[in-house]
């Protein structure tokens, strides 16, 4: 029977320690790699929007009796001329997004509760729709909804 001498045991433990070091190196390298690459993930933010119940139903026959409204709707129509969006607020043409912002800033002082309705034509890229939504939200309107084009509704 071999009795392990205390000297030999000490050497064995040293062997185990030295064999583990490269593995720990590799694991730490992997950890660092994953932590580092995760910093390249672009953070997404969200724009919450509450859909209203009238949308999707037949607009001529509201499901609920419409609540008494003190304020007129602010309809922002977004047309598309092929290259750039063309905006109108309640039938009045607006030159630019900054201009929309100015006008909405004036309106929000008077009636911040007024519902804003975005009405883009089908061809408008979503980026421009969200821009208008963003402007209305930044100015301080709380109720912003999307209009749906009639042809989509029937089809």
């Amino acid at each position: 029977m071999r009795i392990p001498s205390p000297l030999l045991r000490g050497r064995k433990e040293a062997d185990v320690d030295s064999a583990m070091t490269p593995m720990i190196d590799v694991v730490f390298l992997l950890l660092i790699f994953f932590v580092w690459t995760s910093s390249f993930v672009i953070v997404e933010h969200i724009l919450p929007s509450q859909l209203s119940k009238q949308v999707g139903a037949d607009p001529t026959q509201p499901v609920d009796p419409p609540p008494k409204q003190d304020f007129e709707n602010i309809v922002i129509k977004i047309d598309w001329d092929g290259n750039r969006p063309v905006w109108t607020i309640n039938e009045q043409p607006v030159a630019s997004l900054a201009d929309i912002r100015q006008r909405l800033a004036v309106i929000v002082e008077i009636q911040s509760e007024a519902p804003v309705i975005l009405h883009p034509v089908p061809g408008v890229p979503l980026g421009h729709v969200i821009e208008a939504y963003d402007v209305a939200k930044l100015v301080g309107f709380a109720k912003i909804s999307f209009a749906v084009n009639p042809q989509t509704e029937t089809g």
Partner: protein
Amino acid sequence: MTPMIDVVFLLIIFFLVSSHLSRQESSVELPLPVAASGDEDTDQTTPRVTINLRSDGTLLIGGRRIEPQQLTEALNEVRQQEGDELEVRIRASRQAPYSAVEPILLACTDAKVWNVTFAVYREEQ
């Protein structure tokens, strides 16, 4: 001792890699619209369906392609499983036409899902 540490490290690596892959699966690379008023996404408890909309108008749910006509049915199914507070997250390309977004909004209202959010970037990427 050493084999156990081996196994533990293997498990750690496995979970790191798999979590990385699962995150990638749910986030299709899309040029999202830009909005300065975007909120931080802190709510992790609300059940959520993510709808990806590519620039060419194709819809993806969970990596699977879906036709706009099937959307109402699919959302109805999920709402029945997850409950009424279901949130629909629209990750749409900024180049996608509004006509491709409309059917999603309509399907949500038809499926009685009122909580809809748009995924955006805070600034131009």
